[in-house]
């Protein structure tokens, strides 16, 4: 109320240059309106029609005014200047007003569970593995995240699909028949097959070492568990394996597992989703000697191969049997001839719903919250439904209720249960477990130590993997890893195993920094990374063998360190053919520095790449950097993109661009595992540039040094990303001081990433709506 009143006063005091409040009027009159009045409108800004109103559009413009004056960019250096005192007074007045405005309009807008959260929540509640996500429409995004209340809408289609999804999950949770049996799939086959003494089979296909798993076709869509047992054959080294699913009924094949087997017999188990009619194939990686096999037949071949025992395939796995879902839904009620038997339907329904409703709504509830669903069950029962059908109807209703679909966060300071939900959706992407709810009920989440202890517990739990995947997937846009397929003519070394390895590297790197509370500056530059053989080869790091990932030290000649040199990030910031300094520069500004550039002005066409000629994209871009109107933004956007030019579209190091132009020379040294090279050595890369502050750099390693010289900037940016992700809202003017405080507190303690997560959770941003 106080805020509203204050703003009203501001808004009323508008004589003369109508829109500008009196505290700022003199400054605006003296130093701004020459260029920014209704007739001049430089930069499309006129103070004649810019209200100081507590609404998004004018607020955003005034924040820009504040930032430009604060940064000293306005009034421009070549124009008359206000003295420091006047400037400070103006900023104090404007900042105070903007802070009040924003504080009054902020707060997480009632947040619907997104598809990922919905699926996790329901699967965790019922202990099933049903694929629900694909039933639901895509979620809206804001600030690069898909868990922002404001951007998550709901339509009749959602409601319809929520009914379908809840029904499907309930169907899988209720176990009325006998448990499914494990199915053993027998020996693999190949063109030239030989059986070893212990029954292991070694096979070769003319087109490489490949095992088709016979007799196995997924009968239905679902989760399957596959155990392979075997050993490396005719070699002392591990043999790498990739497993693909698909092939049946025209299903597109996709990589489901990467592993290796040592010379000693070993079993490995994987779980993955298969579509109906999927078959499995197993490929031996990096197998030399294919030519020899093709020429001389398999029996005389003495090189490395794989000996495989019969596989074990189990599935589809529908969770525990009979499982916690069945217990939660129907307790210990007897099952007779595939029907649940209730002797007292009213009492049973009441008892079951009293368990189910609070579990679904993520907080204790009174009987008035249960009553409508009980009534629904009874009505159904009365109209001739079986007990089981009637209960299912009530359960579907509970799972379509607003208390389940939305996070309840009334205004002001959040209650303990709302905090519990925020915390578990942030770190687990699912509902709080029983222990977290109990901690909330006991008031432990309102103490610093109690909240810290629960945060630690959640971070140490296996479900924190979802935080890593979901947060990095969106913060760094790793979710788009499949958006383009690298051009096979230009990048023949790229394959699915390498692609999977890129994403894994970044996730493991993130985990390592988080687990060890290492400095967040590691994200900018690090003396280590985490790779497997495929990725090490890609990076030119020697001595790494096998598909297992491990931490390795980095040397200057590797040209690696930090997120910016990871192949995942370099791939998602490029298309499959070319890199653009503009796209990559904008990516760095947005994702790393937290200062996304404004969109390109309307009416400026993109540069059309030409991969034939001698002109690089950078040279083509040079034209529009020489125009003042373009350069105002591009002097900020392009430099980080220039610094990344030594990295190609799949994150390989390059000193020259690859080209398909026939006038260029053929490459002399090509990676050993690549055959049929079609690309040529194109123009030389220029990775130099100058930051907008005027600091020159020659390459990415110089540029990273400049970033590291002001680590606070990155810590602050990461704090903001975590706060957005944790609260489900964008950060604004009145959040600035709290974000500054978080960054400063963490910096004083050594910039530890885990400390940063804790500070965000403990902050007023997280504790309030």
């Amino acid at each position, binding site marked *: 109320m106080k805020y509203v009143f204050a703003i009203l006063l501001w808004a009323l005091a508008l004589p003369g240059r109508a829109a500008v409040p009196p505290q700022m009027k003199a400054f605006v009159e003296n130093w701004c309106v020459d260029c920014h009045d209704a007739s001049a409108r430089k930069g499309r800004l006129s103070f004649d029609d810019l209200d100081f109103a507590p609404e998004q559009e004018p607020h955003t413009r005034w924040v820009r005014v504040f930032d430009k004056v604060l940064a000293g960019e306005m009034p421009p250096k070549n124009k008359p200047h206000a003295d420091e005192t006047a400037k400070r007074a103006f900023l104090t007045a404007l900042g105070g007003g903007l802070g009040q405005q924003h504080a009054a309009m902020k707060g997480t807008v009632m947040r619907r569970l997104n598809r990922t959260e919905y699926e996790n929540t329901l699967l965790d509640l019922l202990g099933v593995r049903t694929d629900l996500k694909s039933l639901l429409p895509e979620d809206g995004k804001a600030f690069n995240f898909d868990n922002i209340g404001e951007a998550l*809408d709901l339509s009749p289609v959602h409601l319809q699909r929520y009914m379908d999804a809840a029904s499907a999950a309930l169907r899988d949770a209720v176990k009325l028949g006998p448990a499914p049996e494990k199915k053993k799939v027998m020996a693999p086959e190949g063109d030239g097959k030989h059986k070893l003494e212990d029954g292991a089979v070694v096979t070769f296909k003319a087109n490489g070492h490949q095992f088709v798993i016979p007799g196995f076709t997924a009968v239905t869509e679902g989760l399957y568990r596959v155990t392979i047992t075997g050993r490396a054959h005719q070699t002392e080294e591990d043999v790498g394996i990739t497993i693909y699913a698909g092939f049946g009924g025209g299903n597109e094949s996709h990589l489901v597992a990467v592993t290796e087997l040592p010379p000693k017999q070993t079993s490995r188990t994987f779980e993955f989703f298969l579509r109906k009619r999927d078959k499995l194939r197993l490929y031996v990686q990096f197998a030399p000697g294919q030519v020899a096999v093709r020429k001389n037949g398999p029996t005389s071949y003495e090189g490395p191969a794989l000996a495989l025992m019969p596989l074990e395939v189990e599935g589809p796995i529908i969770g525990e049997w009979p499982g916690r879902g069945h217990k939660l839904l129907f307790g210990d009620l007897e099952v007779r001839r595939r029907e649940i038997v209730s002797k007292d339907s009213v009492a049973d329904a009441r008892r079951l719903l009293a368990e189910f409703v609070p579990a679904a709504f993520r907080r204790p509830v009174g009987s008035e919250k249960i009553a409508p669903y009980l009534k629904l069950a009874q009505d159904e029962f009365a109209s001739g439904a079986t007990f089981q059908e009637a209960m299912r109807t009530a359960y579907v209703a509970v799972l379509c209720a607003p208390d389940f679909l939305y996070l309840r966060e009334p205004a002001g300071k959040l209650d303990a249960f709302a905090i519990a939900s925020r915390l578990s959706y942030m770190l687990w992407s699912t509902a709080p477990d029983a222990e977290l709810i109990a901690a909330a009920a006991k008031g432990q989440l309102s103490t610093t130590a109690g909240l810290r202890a629960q945060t630690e517990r959640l971070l140490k739990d296996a479900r924190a993997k979802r935080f890593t995947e979901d947060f990095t997937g969106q913060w760094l846009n790793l979710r788009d890893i499949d958006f383009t397929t690298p051009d096979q003519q230009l990048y023949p070394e790229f394959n699915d195993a390498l692609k999977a390895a890129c994403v894994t590297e970044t996730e493991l790197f993130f985990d390592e920094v988080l687990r060890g509370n290492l400095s967040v500056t590691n994200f900018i530059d690090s003396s280590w990374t985490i790779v497997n053989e495929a990725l090490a080869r890609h990076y030119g790091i020697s001595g790494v063998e096998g598909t297992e990932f491990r931490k390795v030290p980095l040397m200057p000649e590797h040209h690696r360190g930090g997120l910016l040199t990871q192949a995942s990030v370099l791939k998602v910031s490029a298309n499959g*053919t070319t890199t653009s300094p503009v796209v990559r520069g904008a990516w760095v500004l947005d994702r790393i520095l937290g200062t996304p550039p404004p969109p390109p002005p309307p009416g400026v066409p993109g540069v059309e790449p030409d991969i034939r000629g001698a002109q690089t994209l950078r040279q083509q871009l040079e034209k529009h950097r020489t125009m003042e109107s373009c350069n105002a933004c591009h002097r900020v956007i392009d430099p980080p993109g220039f610094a990344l030019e030594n990295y190609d579209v799949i994150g390989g190091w390059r000193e020259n661009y690859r080209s398909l132009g026939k006038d260029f020379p053929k490459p002399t040294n090509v990676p050993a595992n690549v055959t049929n090279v079609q690309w040529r050595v194109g123009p030389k890369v220029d990775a130099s540039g100058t930051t907008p502050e005027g600091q020159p750099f020659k390459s990415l390693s110089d540029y990273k040094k400049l970033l590291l010289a002001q680590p606070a900037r990155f810590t602050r940016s990461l704090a903001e990303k975590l706060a957005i992700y944790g609260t489900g809202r964008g950060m604004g003017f009145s959040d600035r001081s709290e974000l500054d405080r978080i960054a400063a507190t963490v910096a004083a303690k050594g910039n530890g990433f885990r400390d940063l997560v804790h500070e965000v959770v403990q902050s007023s941003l997280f504790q309030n709506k």
Partner: protein
Amino acid sequence: MKTPHFSAKPHLSRRAFVRGAGTILALPWLEAMLPAFANKAQAAAAATPPRRFLAMNYSLGFHGPNLFPKEAGRDYLLTPYLEELKEHRANFSIFSGLSHEEQNGANGHTSELTWLTAAKHPGLLGFRNSISFDQLLIEKLSPDTRFPGLILNVIGGNSLSWTANGVNLPAESSPSKVFSQLFLNGSPSEVKMQLRELKRGRSILDTVNGEAKKLQRELGRRDQEKFDQYLTSVRELETRIQANEMWVQRSKPKVDAKPPTDVQDRNDIIARTRLMHELIVLAFQTDSTRFVTYNAGELGTVPKIEGVTQAWHNLSHHGQDEHRIEELTIIERAEFGEVARLLGLLQAAKEGGRTLLDQTIVLAGSNLGNASSHSWRDLPVIVAGGGFRHGLHIVAGGKGNENVRFANLFVQIAHRLDVDLNRFGSSTGPAVKGFETA
């Protein structure tokens, strides 16, 4: 009439469809049906054949030099792609110089979100999509058909259709599923079961609606605004379920065509497109729906077309490489070949002395004018059928920044469908100059 041909291979039994749906509302309708049809007054107008609208977006665009004629007007020389459509020359027009306003968005391809909505800055901060043209037409006309609209795509991903609050409506990419929903009747006991499920769906909505109303009173202003979507959705879904209780008891139209067998291979884009096209014709012919959107798709992989060896998306970024443009041309020609076939089917189907094509406005185009540079200017736009005066290359506007608003054409199409519409999105006028009703 030439009966649309479907593969005669054995198909899934009807029971399998019902079981496969596995839903509490095993409805004989697609969720594509938006918004609800409340108004049945249209029945009176049934004497004259209805007009239909089909929108098809090819999100990787077309190689401009192969498409746009150099000459304006009636006597243009056929370009390689229009060569594919030459049989239908009198029944379509090609437009150049059209685009939506300010389509610079989150990345080079986000203009595909707004091809049929004309909203600005797709994907950028603060972006919220607006209602798509097909959904607006449905809302205005409330067609009394089993399906207010069909929302289709060739493979997964977004559809072209959006609700007024910016939710993307899911598309169906399985012709066999669409076919069963359009034409396969359930047994009496299945119909009974469906009715029971519909009734149960309504009871569920009743229950949650009561709870939602209680909750609404406890919310602050901004939460209330957001939560209003929930209450509105409950109401709309209730209306639709009611309508479906009526439709489920009416028998579906009989067709000669055999149920199609889905093409599983995603890369066999042409075969998949052909099946969908045949189905679209059947849906119009039986007046099962009057509004169809079709996302003709794109692939990051190699399409299964003879002579194509590289991934489609990469080919679209041809970088002026001759060989790539050759392969890209093979793909795009094949797409045009399918459009020609579709127009042929619409032309062959007759109703009330006219052809189905005369009664159907086909809008085909792309959200990219040049995919190699991600340009959203100079969009390729083709309109066929619908009773317009065709046979023209209409140069609607100048190049690039001189483009005329694509949405003007939408307004003109709306008028042709007797929808009173002053503006759509960024439109600046009621029609594209030079394009007229026959």
